[in-house]
């Protein structure tokens, strides 16, 4: 039986481990050179790889995952630095690109563990050099030993806001402000549910407490106004505090982010139906608790199938591999499957509380000024999308996202709406006066990221 696993983050590693233990040798493809996913991404070999320094409280977990990753490489058809740009569920084929060379991988069953990226809300000035996602700020520090600037402000909501600010301050960066768009009251209401999270909740409190104890400026319930810039860089950040007063800080870099969104393009191309998850406020591919989908032979695990975080991804990877084995007629350890199901169910309850404590600020996106750049790829502004929702729009109003894309090019650029899609949906829905789940979602298109049009097939390379 030919099995393929896409992704070598927490979900992919545990999935492969389970498959190998059952005697299989899956094809294992990952876009990064050395696996680990984004959360446990290792720096290039020339840099210090000390786990305690890089991963903090997560050092043991990261080291365990890396050890398994390295142990599995020789026991699989390991293909690092390999980008899966298309999946064809009818013929069960992955189309890949490795250092400029195309190839195909045929499978009987595939497990997609494609991870997540930051979910953002545009802010006037957000295309200035010096503005990055929160995840980018963390990757710069973790894998390159660099801060995104010398005086750094962080703006957003959710666990990553506090974690990255803490990591920067600990590394000696000048963190000039940590601005949470979620009000204290919203977080307090979710606090009871967060207690279920035990250690995860405790770590979050620790980061916030540490930042406060070190006199770092923290403001909650803020409304972003603009990122200021001159020439090729950021010079400051303006916001309104919870009482509506104008505030400002001088800075040369800003990290922004409001939680994560699944990188689910391959699931989309595989024909797996999606649903709008109101708690996460994300479109997610449909799967059962074990990771099965309605498309035979196609399984999902990890954040690419809905945001759950790294610990959940490890459980989900192992569980989806068991489901795959079971469906293939193998005898699987029923007690282990049941244990994973219980752990996944419990983790799901904590996730609900976490999402309630840091909801996506749809109102901030819907309320953006017309002249704010919305789509970075196409240099398209908020007002251009809003105009497509008007009755008098020349082509007729756009009632859903893909029509709006065709009319305005929103999400048609080279990132395919990964960056602007979430905010664009809020803007269009608000302009149409309908709920955001009523306007659909941007469909995925191959290649899921740009590839060179000149890439030769493998047999053409001497």
């Amino acid at each position, binding site marked *: 039986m030919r099995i393929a696993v896409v992704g070598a983050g927490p979900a992919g590693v545990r999935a492969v481990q389970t498959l190998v233990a059952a005697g299989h040798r899956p094809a294992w493809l990952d*876009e990064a050179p050395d696996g680990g996913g*984004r959360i446990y991404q290792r*720096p*290039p*070999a*020339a*840099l*210090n790889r000390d786990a305690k*320094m890089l991963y903090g409280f997560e050092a043991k977990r990261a080291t365990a995952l890396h050890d398994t990753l390295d142990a599995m490489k020789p026991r699989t058809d390991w293909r690092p630095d390999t980008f899966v740009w298309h999946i064809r569920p009818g013929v069960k084929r992955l189309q890949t690109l490795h250092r400029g060379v195309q190839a195909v991988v045929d499978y009987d069953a595939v497990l997609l563990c494609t991870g997540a*990226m*930051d979910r953002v809300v545009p802010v006037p000035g957000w*295309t*200035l*050099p*010096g*503005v*990055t*996602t929160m*995840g*980018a700020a963390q*990757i*710069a*520090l973790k*894998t*390159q*030993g*660099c*801060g*995104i*600037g*010398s005086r750094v402000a962080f703006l957003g909501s959710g666990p990553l806001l506090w974690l990255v600010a803490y990591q920067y301050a600990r*590394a*000696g*960066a000048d963190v000039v402000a940590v601005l949470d768009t979620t009000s204290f009251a919203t977080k307090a209401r979710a606090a009871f549910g967060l207690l279920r999270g035990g250690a995860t909740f405790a770590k979050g409190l620790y980061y916030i407490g540490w930042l406060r104890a070190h006199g770092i400026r923290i403001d909650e319930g803020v409304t972003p106004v603009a990122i200021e810039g001159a*020439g*090729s*860089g*950021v010079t400051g950040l303006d916001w309104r505090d919870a009482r509506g007063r104008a505030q400002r800080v001088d800075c*040369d*870099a800003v990290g922004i982010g409001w939680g994560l969104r699944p*990188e689910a393009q391959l699931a989309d191309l595989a024909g797996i139906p999606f649903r709008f998850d109101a708690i996460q406020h994300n479109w997610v591919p449909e799967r059962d608790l074990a990771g099965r989908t309605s498309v035979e032979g196609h399984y999902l695990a990890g954040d690419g199938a809905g945001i759950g975080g790294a610990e959940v991804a490890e459980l989900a990877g192992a569980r989806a591999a068991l489901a795959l084995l079971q469906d293939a007629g193998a005898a699987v350890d029923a007690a282990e499957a049941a244990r994973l199901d219980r752990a996944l169910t419990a983790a799901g309850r904590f996730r609900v509380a976490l999402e309630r404590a840091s909801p996506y600020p749809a109102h901030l996106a819907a309320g953006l000024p017309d002249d704010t*750049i919305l789509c*970075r*790829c*196409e*240099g398209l502004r908020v007002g251009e999308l809003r105009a497509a929702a008007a009755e008098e729009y020349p082509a007729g109003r756009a009632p859903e996202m893909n029509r709006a894309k065709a009319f305005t090019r929103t999400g048609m*650029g*080279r*990132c395919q709406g*990964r*960056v602007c899609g979430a905010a664009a949906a809020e803007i269009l829905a608000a302009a149409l006066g309908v709920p955001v789940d009523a306007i659909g979602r941007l469909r995925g298109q191959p290649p899921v*990221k*740009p590839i*060179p049009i000149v890439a030769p097939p493998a047999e053409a390379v001497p």
Partner: protein
Amino acid sequence: MKLRRLRDAGRPRILLTLEGEALEAQAGDTLLTALLAGGAGHLRDSEFGDGPRAGFCLMGACQDCWVVVEGQGRVRACATLAEDGMRVKRG
């Protein structure tokens, strides 16, 4: 935008060029790090005239850090390791 080297900053030096100008970086830098820690300020200009860009996601998804490397063509600066002698142009 100027990246600030906070730790592990004593690695062997490598030399590359940006638009023909020499630029010093360190072994293990990505092209994005090499250029933005080395004082390039930005990586590309928006095709739509709205100003300079210097990457955004650093995980190969946003495509906003494209530069051109002689002999390789267009690459994502965040996902490409800098190498001694590389000749780079803004994207």
